[in-house]
C-alpha cells in the first residue's frame, strides 16, 4: 500500500461511491446548522418534499443573528427573531437537536461543535459556514458549504467532492512570549497570500503545532479559509484525545477504546508526498496585525504600512491603494501608534477560554483608554460560564470592557452589532473585508493579547512592550 496523508486516510474512509475525474461521493458524519444558513437549507428541503436523512447527525444552534446584549431575547434585534424561530421550528419538525439561548451547547457553531464532542477526530463535518475548517483542528475533515449542498447533505448525508491537492505547512521552532496561533496564521497568510490554498487541503504540522493546546489549533485551522483552502487539519495526538475525552457527545465505554485505537492511525505516513510542502520558522514571528482589507494584508506590529509603489504589479498596486484609502492609512507610517475606536474580542477565531484568559492578563488592573468601546463576546455559553467562574468577566468589566453573551456578534455584524462607518476596530476575528464589521468599518485583525493591549493604549501597540 502506498503512503497516505492524514487527509487521504479520512477521505478514503468516507467514500460511498467513486465518481469520475477524481470526484467521490463522501459520507458526511456531522452537519452543523446555525441561524443564518440553517433555515434556508431546511426550508428548501421541505419545499422539495424531502426529509432529513439522519437527524441524529445534525446539530443546530443560533449564533449569527442573535444579539450579544445582556438579557437578550430572540427579538433583541430586528434581524434574528424570524430566523431563530425558523431554525427552532425546522429542527423540532425534523428531530434535530438544537442548543438554544442560555443553554449548554449554544454559541458560535465552531466553538460548540468541538466543545460538546460533536466534532471528533476522523469525522467528516460540514456547515453552511466557511469557517467550518476550524473543526479540522481535531483531525477532522471539515469544510464549509453553501445552501444547496447543505440541503443535499440533509437529504442524503452525502456530498460529491473533488479530492483537493494537498499542502503541508510545517511550523518549526518555538513561539515567543505574547505570540499566538493567531499571529502564526496571519504571518502565514501574509507570506503565502490569500489564495495560496485554493484547491488545496492544508495539514499543519511540526513542533509548534504539536506543542499547541487545542484552543490554539482551533484558531490556526480557523484561518485556513483565509489562506484560500476550505480544509485545514492537524493530526490528532495525545493532546486531542485528552481534550475530547468525556465531552457530552464523545464516544464512551467500549466505543471510546475503539475510537482512540482508530484515531491513533490518523497520521500522515512518513513517506507520504504532498503536492506542496512548506516549512516556516516561527521563532522570528512576532505579533501580527492587518493593515488593509484582505487577511493577506498582514504585517508585524513593528512594521510600517506598505507602499503601493512597491507592489509587484499594477493590479496589486491599485488594490493596495484602495485598501489604504478605505482604511484611512498612509504608506510608510508605522502601524503601531494608529489610534483605535473599537476593540472586539470574540469570534470563532478567538473567543475560547484560553483567549479570554490571555486577554484578561493584559487587561487586569488597567483601564480601557477613553473614547474606546471595547467588547468581549465569549464564544459559547460554556466559555461564558467558565470565564465567569474564574472571574474573568469581572477583570474585563473593571477595566471598562463590556462583557456580553455568546454569538458571532461584531465579527460579521449580521445581528446589527456594527462598528460605525469610518471607525477603526482592532478585532480578534478573521476577516478585515470592506464592510465586514459594518458598512465603512475599518478592521485590524489581531490576537486577543494585541487587541487587549490596543484597548488599554487606545492605539495599536506591540503587546511585548505594553
Amino acid at each position, binding site marked *: 500500500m502506498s503512503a497516505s496523508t492524514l487527509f487521504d486516510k479520512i477521505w478514503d474512509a468516507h467514500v460511498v461511491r467513486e465518481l469520475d475525474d477524481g470526484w467521490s461521493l463522501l*459520507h458526511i458524519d456531522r452537519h452543523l446548522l446555525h441561524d443564518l*444558513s440553517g433555515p434556508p437549507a431546511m426550508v428548501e428541503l421541505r419545499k422539495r418534499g424531502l426529509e432529513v436523512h*439522519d437527524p441524529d447527525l445534525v446539530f443546530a444552534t443560533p449564533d449569527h443573528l442573535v444579539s450579544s446584549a445582556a438579557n437578550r431575547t430572540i427579538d433583541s434585534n430586528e434581524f434574528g427573531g424570524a430566523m431563530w424561530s425558523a431554525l427552532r421550528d425546522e429542527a423540532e419538525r425534523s428531530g434535530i437537536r438544537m442548543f438554544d439561548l442560555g443553554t449548554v451547547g449554544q454559541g458560535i457553531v465552531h466553538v460548540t461543535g468541538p466543545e460538546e464532542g460533536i466534532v471528533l477526530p476522523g469525522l467528516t463535518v460540514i456547515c453552511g459556514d466557511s469557517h467550518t475548517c476550524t473543526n479540522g483542528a481535531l483531525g477532522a475533515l471539515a469544510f464549509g458549504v453553501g445552501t444547496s449542498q447543505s440541503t443535499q447533505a440533509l437529504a442524503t448525508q452525502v*456530498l460529491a467532492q473533488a479530492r483537493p491537492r494537498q499542502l503541508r505547512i510545517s511550523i518549526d521552532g518555538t513561539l515567543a512570549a505574547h505570540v499566538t496561533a493567531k499571529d502564526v496564521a496571519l504571518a502565514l497568510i501574509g507570506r503565502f497570500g490569500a489564495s495560496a490554498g485554493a*484547491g488545496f487541503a492544508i495539514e499543519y504540522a511540526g513542533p509548534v503545532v504539536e506543542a499547541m493546546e487545542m484552543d490554539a489549533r482551533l484558531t490556526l485551522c480557523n484561518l485556513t479559509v483565509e489562506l484560500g483552502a476550505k480544509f485545514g487539519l492537524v493530526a490528532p495526538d495525545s493532546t486531542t484525545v485528552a481534550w475530547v475525552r468525556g465531552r457530552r457527545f464523545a464516544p464512551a465505554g467500549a*466505543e471510546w477504546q475503539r475510537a482512540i485505537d482508530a484515531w491513533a492511525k490518523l497520521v500522515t505516513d512518513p513517506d507520504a508526498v504532498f503536492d506542496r510542502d512548506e516549512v516556516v520558522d516561527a521563532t522570528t514571528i512576532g505579533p501580527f496585525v492587518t493593515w488593509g482589507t*484582505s487577511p493577506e494584508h498582514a504585517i508585524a506590529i513593528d512594521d510600517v504600512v506598505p507602499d503601493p509603489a512597491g507592489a509587484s504589479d499594477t493590479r496589486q498596486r491599485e488594490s493596495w491603494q484602495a485598501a489604504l484609502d478605505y482604511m484611512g492609512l498612509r504608506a510608510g507610517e508605522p502601524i503601531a501608534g494608529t489610534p483605535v475606536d473599537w476593540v472586539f474580542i470574540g469570534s470563532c477565531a478567538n473567543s475560547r477560554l484560553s483567549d479570554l484568559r490571555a486577554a484578561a492578563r493584559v487587561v487586569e488592573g488597567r483601564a480601557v483608554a477613553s473614547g474606546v468601546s471595547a467588547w468581549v463576546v465569549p464564544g459559547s455559553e460554556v466559555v461564558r460560564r467558565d470565564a465567569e467562574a474564574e472571574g474573568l468577566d469581572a477583570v474585563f468589566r473593571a477595566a471598562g470592557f463590556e462583557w456580553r453573551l455568546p454569538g458571532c456578534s461584531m465579527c460579521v455584524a449580521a445581528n446589527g452589532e456594527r462598528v460605525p462607518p469610518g471607525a477603526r476596530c482592532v478585532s480578534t476575528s478573521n476577516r478585515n473585508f470592506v*464592510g465586514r464589521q459594518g458598512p465603512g468599518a475599518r478592521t485590524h485583525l489581531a490576537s486577543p493579547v494585541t487587541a487587549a493591549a490596543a484597548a488599554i493604549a487606545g492605539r495599536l501597540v506591540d503587546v511585548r512592550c505594553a
Partner: protein
Amino acid sequence: MSREPFRTVTGAAAPLLRPNLDTDVIIRIDRMVSTRPAALAPFAFEAIRYCADGSDNPDFALNHDRFRGAPILIGGPNFGCGSSREPAVWAIMGLGIRCIVAPSFGDIFRANCHQNGLLPIVLEETDVADLAAVAASGAPVTVDLQAQRVTASERVWCFTIGANQRVALLDGLDDLDLALRDLDGIRTWEHADRELRPWAWITTRPGKRSTA
C-alpha cells in the same frame, strides 16, 4: 428539479479584476437576511458599485453602458473568496451573469456556482488579462461549454472543467437529484460503517440523552 442547461453564452464581458473580491463585498450580510433570493440583484457588489450618495460609481465596470447587462464577468485572482454565502451567487445571477472567468476562485464560491448553473472558468492570469483587454471595448465574447472555449475578436482561449460538472451544467442536472438516486447505496454504506466505526455514530434520539 432541473436548471436551465448551459450551452453557449455570448455578450459583453465586464472586467472586475481586483484580487480577492470577497463574498461580503458581493452581497452584504444584512441584505441576504432581509431580501428574497430573487430580489438580491440591486444589492450585488453594493460596496463598490455605488457612491456614498447612492449614485452609480463610475469606476465600477457594470455601470458603464457597454457593460450593462453583460452576461460574463472577468474576475481577478481568488474571486469569491471568504464567506460560504450562496446568496453571493444568486445576487450575481440576478444581474443576468451566466459565466465568470478568473485566474482562481474561492473554493466554496466555485462549488456554489456549479450548484446554480453559473459557470466558473479558470484561465491563466495572463490569459485573463488578454481577454479583459479584448473585451474592454464591450466587444462580444462567446463562451462555449461543450467545446470548452472562450472566443472574442478572433482570439481563442481553451479551458477545462471536470466531466461531471460539465455534464451537469450542459444538462441542467441538480446534484441533489443525482444524490437521491444513490440512497440505497448510501444506506448500505452506512450499515457497514456502523460496524466499522461505531464510535462515529450518534444513536440516541434528541431528548433521550441527559442534557445539562
